[in-house]
């Protein structure tokens, strides 16, 4: 079952620009996570935001969470070519599983 849905499916920007990706989810959550996947590799955890938090920063990453709208956004500022990857949101299901969205494919052009 799909809990998170990312938007857009693909995003292409120039180096130095900001990239914003959105995630919508369906049921109540106590946290939401963002992961990154370089082409052909495993996923890497980027950041976790709890349901009682509205915004969280980590380096050039900024995540927001709006529980009333059941949505989250990931902002990457001053993007670099090395940020080229797919980005996934994930939220816990009732059991100990995470449910992942289908991802946003970000391309940062040098």
């Amino acid at each position, binding site marked *: 079952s799909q809990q998170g849905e990312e938007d857009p499916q693909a995003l292409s920007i120039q180096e130095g620009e900001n990239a914003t990706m959105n995630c919508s989810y369906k049921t109540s959550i106590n946290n939401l*996570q963002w*992961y990154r996947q370089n082409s052909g590799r495993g996923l890497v*955890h980027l950041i976790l935001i709890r349901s009682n938090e509205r915004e969280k920063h980590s380096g050039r990453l900024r995540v927001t969470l709006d529980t009333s709208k059941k949505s989250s956004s990931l902002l990457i500022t001053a993007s670099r070519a090395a940020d080229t990857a797919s980005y*996934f949101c994930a939220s816990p299901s009732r*059991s*100990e*599983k*995470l449910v992942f969205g*289908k991802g946003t494919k970000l391309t940062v052009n040098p």
Partner: protein
Amino acid sequence: DVKVTQSSRYLVKRTGEKVFLECVQDMDHENMFWYRQDPGLGLRLIYFSYDVKMKEKGDIPEGYSVSREKKERFSLILESASTNQTSMYLCASSFPPYRAQGAPRTDTQYFGPGTRLTVL
């Protein structure tokens, strides 16, 4: 740092073969997961295990089985490989959400590098 390793990065097998994919984690995590990832379908959970010898079906268990004889190792088995099992297979591990009483829930999963399996 957490390390999750998978036995092969690339694997080519023939239809009908029995295939073993191995995953090992070094962080004493209770939970381990097997996913497959296909274009346009995202990550889909095949099986997960929350303790040694314990397993639960995920969303797409058909055609797969798993084994967890030791805490650090979780194996995915394709009993009779078929071409529709050609995919990227990802293993992950995590602590249980409530590691200690009163501790905030974290479900962060740590992934291996993936195995690209091709079944001919």
